[in-house]
C-alpha cells in the first residue's frame, strides 16, 4: 500500500513537471541564434553538406560523435567480455529447431539487398536523411536475418573486430589531418569540396561517415553475435 502510494506520488510529481513543460510550450516561430548560425548561407557554403544535421554531427560537433562512437565501442567491449566470461562455464544443450524453408529462402534474398541499402544510406549521409549510425544499424539488421537463419555458422568476431579497429583509427586520423591541412580537428576542408549537393562534395564528411558506418555496423553485429553465441551454448 505504502509502496503503491509512493509510486503514485512520484508519477504525479513527474506529470506535474511535464505539464509545466507542456503549458509553456507554444511552438517556435523563429530559429534561435545558434540555429541561425548553422543555417547561415556563408556557413552552409563553407561546410558544403546539404544535410545540415550531418554538418552538425560530423564537423561542428564532430568531437561529440567521436565520444559517442567510443561509448558504443565500450558497450560492445563490455558485452563481449561479460558474455565470454559466462560462456566459459556454460554447458552444451541440444540444438535449436531449424528455421523453415520459406524463412531461409527469404532471408537469403533479402540479406544482400538490406546490406546494399545500408551502404547507400551511409554513403549518402551528407545529402539525404541518414548517415553513418543509421546505415550501420541497417547493416546490423541484415546481420540479424543471417543469424536467425543460422547461415553464419561459427560466428567470426575477429573479422568484425578488425574492421571496427581500422575504421576507428581512420576516423581519428582523418580528424587529425584537419589540424595539419585545415582549420582544426575534424575540419572537413582537407580536400576538394566539390559541387554542393552531389555525391563527391562536403570534403571529408563522406569519408568520415563511411568509416563511422562501418564501425557502427560491425560493433552492433558483434554485440548481436555475442548474444547469439551465448544463446546457442545454453
Amino acid at each position, binding site marked *: 500500500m505504502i509502496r503503491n502510494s509512493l*509510486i503514485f506520488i*512520484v*508519477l504525479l510529481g*513527474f*506529470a506535474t513537471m*511535464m505539464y509545466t*513543460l*507542456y503549458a509553456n*510550450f507554444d*511552438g*517556435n*516561430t*523563429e*530559429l*534561435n541564434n*545558434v*540555429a*541561425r548560425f*548553422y*543555417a*547561415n*548561407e556563408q556557413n*552552409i*557554403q563553407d561546410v558544403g553538406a*546539404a*544535410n*545540415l*544535421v550531418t*554538418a*552538425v*554531427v560530423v564537423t561542428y*560537433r564532430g568531437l*561529440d*560523435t567521436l565520444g*559517442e562512437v567510443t*561509448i*558504443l565501442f*565500450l*558497450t560492445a567491449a*563490455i*558485452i563481449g567480455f*561479460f*558474455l565470454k566470461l*559466462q560462456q566459459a562455464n*556454460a554447458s552444451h544443450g541440444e540444438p535449436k529447431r531449424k528455421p523453415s524453408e520459406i524463412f531461409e529462402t527469404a532471408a537469403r534474398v533479402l540479406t544482400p539487398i538490406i546490406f546494399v541499402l545500408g551502404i547507400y544510406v551511409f554513403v549518402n549521409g551528407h*545529402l*539525404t*536523411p541518414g*548517415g553513418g*549510425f543509421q546505415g550501420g*544499424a541497417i547493416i546490423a539488421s541484415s546481420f540479424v536475418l543471417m543469424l536467425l537463419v543460422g547461415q553464419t555458422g561459427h560466428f567470426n568476431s575477429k573479422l568484425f573486430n578488425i574492421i571496427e579497429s581500422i575504421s576507428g583509427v581512420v576516423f581519428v586520423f582523418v580528424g587529425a589531418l584537419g589540424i595539419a591541412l585545415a582549420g582544426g580537428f575534424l575540419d572537413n576542408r582537407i580536400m576538394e569540396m566539390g559541387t*554542393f*549537393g552531389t555525391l563527391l562534395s562536403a570534403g571529408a564528411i563522406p569519408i568520415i561517415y563511411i568509416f563511422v558506418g562501418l564501425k*557502427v555496423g560491425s560493433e*552492433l553485429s558483434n*554485440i548481436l553475435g555475442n*548474444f547469439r553465441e*551465448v544463446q546457442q551454448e545454453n
Partner: protein
Amino acid sequence: MEYISIIVGLLLIIFGLWGVLTQKNILKIIIGFSLFDTGLHVVMVSISYVKGRTAPILDDTVSIADAAKKIVDPIPQALVLTAIVIGLGVTALMLAYAMKMYKQKGTLDISGYKELNG
C-alpha cells in the same frame, strides 16, 4: 501538430516511468526504460519544431539562400541522433545483465533477487 507530438512524448515518458516502477519482470523494466528514452527523444525534437517549416536538408525545394527561413533547428535533431545510439548501447548492456541474472537465478522476476534488497 506540434502539440500532438509533445503530448505523445510526455505520455511515453510517464508510461515508461510507470513501467520501471511497477513491473516485476526484468525484461518489462527494460522495455519501460526504452519507452522513457523514446519519449524524451520525441519531446526534444518537438520542442525544437518551428511552425510551418521543413527538415534541415537542402535540395531543390529549399535553396541555400532561404535556408534560414525554411528549416527547423538542426541541433536538437543531431543531439537526438546521439541519444538514440547511446540508448541502444544502454539497452544492450541491460539485456546482457538480464541474461546473466537469468542464468544465475533461473528467473526473470526481480522479487527473486534477494541480495539486491536493502
